[in-house]
């Protein structure tokens, strides 16, 4: 194992612990938005997609390249939009008398 890989593994393992710590604090009522939020976050693979499909080497060819970027952007933009849509529905109890609206 190279020094380089070891550094990356260090980052990975520490990030897993941070993830477990942060996510265990998310209340069950928000678990669906949590999933779609993390879904959007792994859309970060779009960064990789742009580097692989857009820079000089272009080993995938144009068709697969476009498909790759589409897949990743779908993930990013769809993920954030749908999370936002869900989160705006979560409201505390309305205090105005009849509880409607």
């Amino acid at each position: 194992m190279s020094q380089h890989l070891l550094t990356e593994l260090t980052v990975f393992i520490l990030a897993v612990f941070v993830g477990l710590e942060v996510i265990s604090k998310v209340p069950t009522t928000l678990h669906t938005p949590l999933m779609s939020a993390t879904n959007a976050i792994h859309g970060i693979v779009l960064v990789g997609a742009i580097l692989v499909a857009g820079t000089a080497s272009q080993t995938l060819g144009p068709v697969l390249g476009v498909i790759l970027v589409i897949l990743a952007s779908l993930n990013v933009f769809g993920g954030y939009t749908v999370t936002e849509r869900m989160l705006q529905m979560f409201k505390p109890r309305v205090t105005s008398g009849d509880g409607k609206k």
Partner: protein
Amino acid sequence: MNAVATSASAPANPLDIAYLATGVCFILGLRYLSHPRTARLGNRISAFGMLIALVATLTQGIVAWWIVATGIVVGAAIGIFSARAVKMTAMPQMVAIFNGMGGGAAALVATGEFLRLLVESPTRPPSLPIDQAVTIVLSAIIGSLSFAGSIIAFLKLQEVMTGRPITYRGQQLVNALFALIVVGSAIAVILNQNVEMEFFIAFGGALVLGVLFVLPIGGADMPVVISLLNAFTGLAAALTGFVLANNVLIISGALVGASGTLLTIMMGKAMNRTITNVLFGAFGAAPATESAAGANGKPSANVRSASVDDVAMMLAYAKEVIIVPGYGMAVAQAQHSVRELADQLEKRGVEVKYAIHPVAGRMPGHMNVLLAEANVPYTALYDMEDINPQFARADVALVIGANDVTNPAARNVPSSPIYGMPILDVDKAQNVVVLKRSMNTGFAGIENPLYEDPKTVMLFGDAKKSVEELANAVKAL
């Protein structure tokens, strides 16, 4: 760390600084999800972090602008459109398909890097350094497994194909065979045998395996599967980070992997089943169909059925009512009517709470979203642990389209298939009202002794219609 020639004293690459900011934004974004009040802010911080990473990446010597631009515009358009159009009941399949897209993208990124390394390899036939071979192959396998699995999960949830487990003779054997092919060719790539062919065999084998492993899993087990696939895609994204030597991918992938794993474990616990049992058990496959057909119709002698007016009276003069919504309520689209009913009751001074079982929906937290959509305040929604001690004080527990998660057999009948599963203690309430279409058993095909409890009355009929009638009856009182 993007450039290969980084030395310890070289000044930091601005790109890496931007990626660090992105990583921090993602962690903060998840941190703010710890309360519904701050959750939206969190989502925006996370999206902002994504924007930073995107802009920074676009400064990195992109030559094929049209590929990048077309991809982003088309992907964003489809993504935003479908995210806006999707119904909240269809959220599990939406999350599944987005998840699959991410997995597929990760697998393709790995493939692109693999091909580049082949071209650039100094040896003929080409070979890969072992570090890179391991991460590339793993990222391609896990990514394509997640891609194919998510698509099958999507098709099942969308009911394009049957939600029941699909099983056949020798299934385990076939799955094991494909698993062996995938592992074997992955090892061959790593040991630098005929790399190119072996790589694509591993890739294709993982696609098939993804399909095969989700096929035997039934609709009610989907919360586990979706969480697991989410974890897979996270892991695949992290692995592409290793492949591209890109920290932000590693960090984000690790966060998602941790989240997916945690949710998978929680869902497994909520069903009292191990993950292996969910994946390989084909729960309730044949028996469910048999007993559903056998127990069809006829309520047994001990079951009391009540009229709408009886139940409305009971609810209206109660002090505290706990509503127990199940997936049946969501299927009947009754959540808005349920809120109407709750409003009517609250007007009369009745305290209304909602008891949510962790697997009440088709994905973790699904029921909460459905109720939030119907304007039920999140402060009225209670977790299983919080609400269970309160049932004894409740005058009425109103069960709407929930079955197995209220089944006392899980507590006291060791021979029951769901024995040991944590349930909502509905039977501890003073009175129990069960809204149900007929006496059919639930998804798992298990009799529910709750229905024969002397405290229980049944209100048969379509959930939505019954709830609407109840709301009107309470109003008229």
